[in-house]
């Protein structure tokens, strides 16, 4: 084939550099349409021709949405604008959520040569992240790290919280950040005029706009500020109890620092759960672990034991739930969260569903065990108690009932549930410590206690996963890499509800032992 050189070569049309390409990735319902509308109206009002388009489809229902806008100074003719963002060809990328920022990077809309990335760091968790029985939340840090590399300029802040603080929604704060970024050739007044022209919720929008404008103008140096350190809880109570508490605190202080760090909140948890004597028992258990621990590994075993023994000792029984539900601090917290104003009242409804197991668990251990062993009695208890109960804890009857239940701590140690929990705890600890001197394996077994959580069926499923994981560990206990396998099994167990991943991991183990 011959090559024709009939046409002269030309550089790209210099007028093309005048096109500003702006994309916005949002989650359905975030007001991406409002934001695009403002930008478009502002561009037109300031001597630009603009074209916007969107892909909403079914994505309007909480799915990912894309808005795209191009503008150029008005001139002789009508520019030909594209209807979709192209990889490597976006000047301004607005991501209304952190993972959407990640998605914009994946799609190539953020490039170091040209893109200003404005992202809100807050998270709207996807269903897949929320469903996992463990911690399935995606890493924002990874997205931020990628954005630092991918974007020419990266402006990030929690624009959602900022908008809410100012009585508005995220579209307003993102518009403010866009103005503050200086990426568009329009003055601040032009942005504000667009908000005013829309005529809806103008005051709130302008407040959120102004706040975000400031943030974008002076982006915080380096990484986003670390969240404020959690407030340290302080003990309060009668002098006699306080004196005893201080003795326990002193025992914690005597532990090696890594262990003490975990043992102090652990101690608070068990004392709050039961009483100071129970706290002393807790410390005795922790100290017993310490006796077999070594400084060489940084007392990791004691630290992990301090954490999980506390969780195991402060198990979730009816008394604990009733106690937590009837505290004054809880009532105040909820009133604050629900923004109950003076002159308003608040009704509070709890959703309880006791089963025969919970009732039997409350009986004295020997009697409870007999009841639990008798299908007839369990059926009877179910008939009497097993139904959903809506308790209005702002009324006297329901409050009193829970208040009395919550006050039954003196009774707790005699119950069947307590005996079961203690037995489980001791067996688990013994198994873990039995693996010593194989330190890593012992630590991993301690950590498996994380699997036991939830109530009723979920709790039963957790226990069964715990048992299966322990069984799996027993199979590989003789191997060099037993600790690795223990960790892998635990992580698999936290992946899905039915334990499919765990079954898969166990299958693998059985294939080689």
């Amino acid at each position, binding site marked *: 084939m011959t*090559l024709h050189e009939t046409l002269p070569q030309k550089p790209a049309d210099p007028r093309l550099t005048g*096109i500003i390409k702006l994309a916005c990735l949002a989650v359905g319902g975030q007001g991406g349409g409002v934001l695009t509308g403002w930008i478009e109206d502002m561009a037109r009002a300031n001597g630009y021709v603009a074209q916007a388009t969107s892909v909403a489809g079914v994505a309007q*229902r909480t799915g990912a949405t894309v808005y795209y806008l191009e503008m150029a100074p008005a001139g002789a003719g009508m520019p030909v604008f594209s209807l979709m963002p*192209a990889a490597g060809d976006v000047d301004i990328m607005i991501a209304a959520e952190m993972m959407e920022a990640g998605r914009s990077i994946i799609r190539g809309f953020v490039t170091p040569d040209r893109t200003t990335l404005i992202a809100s760091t807050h998270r709207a968790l996807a269903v*897949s992240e929320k469903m996992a029985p463990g911690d399935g939340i995606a890493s924002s840090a990874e997205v931020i790290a990628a954005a630092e590399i991918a974007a020419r300029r990266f402006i990030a802040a929690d624009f959602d919280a900022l908008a809410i603080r100012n009585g508005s929604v995220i579209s307003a704060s993102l518009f403010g950040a866009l103005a503050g970024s200086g990426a568009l050739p329009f003055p601040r007044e032009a942005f504000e005029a667009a908000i005013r022209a829309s005529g809806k919720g103008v005051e709130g929008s302008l407040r959120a706009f102004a706040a975000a404008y400031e943030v974008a103008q002076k982006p915080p140096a380096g990484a986003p500020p670390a969240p404020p350190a959690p407030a340290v809880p302080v003990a309060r109570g009668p002098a006699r109890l306080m004196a005893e508490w201080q003795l326990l605190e002193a025992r914690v202080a005597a532990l090696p620092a890594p262990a003490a760090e975990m043992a102090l909140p652990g101690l608070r948890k068990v004392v*709050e759960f039961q009483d100071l004597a129970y706290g002393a028992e807790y410390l005795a258990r922790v100290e017993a672990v310490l006796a077999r621990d070594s400084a060489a590994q940084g007392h990791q075993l004691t630290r992990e034991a301090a954490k999980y023994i506390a969780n195991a000792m402060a198990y979730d029984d009816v008394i604990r739930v009733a106690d937590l*539900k009837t505290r004054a601090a809880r009532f105040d917290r909820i009133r604050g969260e629900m923004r109950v104003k003076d002159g308003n009242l608040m009704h509070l409804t*709890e959703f*309880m569903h006791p089963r025969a197991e919970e009732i039997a668990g409350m009986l004295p251990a020997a009697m409870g065990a007999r009841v639990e062993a008798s299908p007839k009695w369990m059926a009877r208890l179910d008939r009497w108690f097993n139904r959903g109960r809506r308790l209005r804890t702002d009324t006297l009857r329901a409050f009193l009932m829970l208040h009395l239940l919550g006050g039954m701590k003196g009774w707790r140690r005699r119950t069947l549930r307590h005996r079961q929990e203690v037995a489980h705890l001791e067996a688990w600890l013994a198994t873990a410590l039995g693996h010593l001197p194989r330190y890593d394996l012992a630590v991993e077994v301690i950590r498996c206690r994380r699997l036991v959580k939830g109530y009723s069926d979920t709790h039963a499923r957790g226990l069964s996963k715990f048992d299966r994981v322990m069984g799996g560990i027993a199979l590989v206990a003789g191997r060099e890499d037993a600790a690795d396998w223990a960790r892998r099994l635990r992580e698999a167990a936290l992946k899905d509800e039915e334990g499919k991943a765990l079954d898969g991991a166990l299958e693998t183990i059985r294939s080689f032992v």
Partner: protein
Amino acid sequence: MAERSFKAEVEHLRLGAGDTFTGEGILAITKALLESGVGYVGGYQGAPISHLMDVLADAQDLLGELGVRFEANANEAAAAAMLAASVHYPIRGAVTFKGAVGVNVASDALANLSSSGVTGGALIIVGEDYGEGSSIMQERTHPFAMKSQFWLLDPRPNLPSITKAVSDGFDLSEASNTPVMLMVRIRSCHVTGSFETRDNRRPPLSVREALSNPRSDFARVVLPPMSYAHEQDKVKNRWPAAEKFIRERGLNEVFGPAQAPVGLVVQGGMYNGVIRALQRLGLADLYGNSDVPIYVLNVTYPLLSSEFLDFCEGKDQVLVIEEGQPEFIEQQLSTYLYRAGSSVKLRGKDIFPMAGEYTGQVMLDSLSSFLRQAAPGLLAAVHRAPNEDRPQIPDLTKTVPIRPPGFCTGCPERPVFAAMKLVQKETGKLQIAADIGCHLFASLPPFEIGGATMGYGLGPAANGAFDGGGERRPVAVIGDGGFWHNGLSSSFGNMAFNKSDGVAVIVDNFYSAATGGQDVKSSRADNATKATKNPISKALKGIGIEWVREVNRTYDVGHMRDVLREALTTDAPGPKVIVASSECMLNKQRREKPLMQAAIKEGRRVEAPRFGVDEAVCTGDHACIRLSGCPSLSLKKLDDPLRDDPVASIDQSCVGCGNCGEVADAAVLCPSFYRADVVHNPSRWETRLAAFRARIIGWLQARRAARTLRFEAL
């Protein structure tokens, strides 16, 4: 009423000659219809043309003034059938629906209409739901035009071109006695821009007037021998007439230099994407002036052989830019070249990907690849041998989760599927067929209910093979929209006639919700022009289905589960149908929120419910989320070093629908949930009672607090 009101936009439809309309593509089309003297309009909603139907519904006054009849058709088949009015009468008619699915439904009527031919212009506006943001199977509408011989317009995606296509479409239809389909893609429907308007025109003959002078002609009826004559007429008269019109009116466009080694043949809808790629390659300027000749097919069917061959004259290679598969246009054009004995090399899907959307990157890659091969002289050095040194951007594909659409906050369908999930825990996995609509989101996690969808209104029909029953009954899910679209006859008629043993759940949310909240026959709203408030259960009884259970508050998960269990286990013969009714929360909130705020302001007593989670009680197992997926039920990481897993947390957007509490109760999950009802403007007696209670409760709390050790964060 639809979820978005277009009352403000309707005013734009009144613009006259010399005015400028600025707005969305789909509204511009509506305006162009009125300017073309359309006599009747109709259609069936669906993305991306829902707004067209919503605007028309909101524009009833204007339509009345102009003597235009608007019909919200029962489905796409009904809409296409309505175009029968243009067969005998010189009245212009337009209907709209989505493609390819709507066209599938309408195809029977479209084929008959195309056989009969039209006298008045008949325009079908199809929103082609293809590529990113699409909610349907990825297919093309194109072959429907080929098989039925109607004409297909695919204008360049800007408002002047799209609106011109409307008026050209009517003219073409009348000049060739053939219905014309105007295809607009998702982004073209939502693209904004401006065009100069003309005055609206009253139809010369209105449908009311036509009724006074009825016409008929058996030669137009699709019966032998006339049907044979229709086929001949299509080929011998209508097709040539269309070609003549397209050529003479210059509906297709040629841009760029007359002489060049290569040329591009593009579907009108692809034009802007092509220009952008050329701009990036330095071969076009801001205004689209291109150094490469471009033949723009604003009419993609029929294709004009002579026009195409003229364009190819003197070129070595011509590239066809045609989105979707198979490549009908490319095949047709290569036939033209072959028959003409041409030596021009036709390129197309050998360069472009066969399937999928032509995104910016695809366009750039394919065009530069073509030009590098066919005319490297055109390209600047930088594009001939791209040698980019880009920094390595970390791969986030494993980090960023997918975000498919799901049920809205407070959706009344969520508890239906939570109940189904609970029932399946008792019965084991069931055979479940799904339909089209919001409820199809249940097929995704966390519910994973429903294994297949066969089309709108076809959910229960899709279980036909299992109608005979077995150890466990098959279950089908269908929405109220699907029920009235086609489900009553195709699905429930089928079940009743075949004495199905299956279970069908009708999720009745009072609207055609997924398409934007349009009214359907069973909607509870008053509608001045439509007959609403027709209970679904009555229709079921009417076709002989006896076992019907109505659940009037789906949020009662326990009850919902019991009814499902009953349907699965009852001895009653015949179909078991559950009508699960609760209003779409999106629409309910839109309606009730302003009323509630007004009531609070006026000092009336209002209870505002919202849910919460006690984070100390929640153990972070997320069982509640696996039965919900509600956007307002999320997770929160605690500062507590003793806790590994994030706990459930309910944010401000909670509408207090009750699902959380009901699920926690029905599934016996945990006692973490609570509902707080804030009472605005309580009565004096109520306030006094609350104060009395608070005093006693406060005293008890203080008493216990004084005796125990408490830890308080400062």
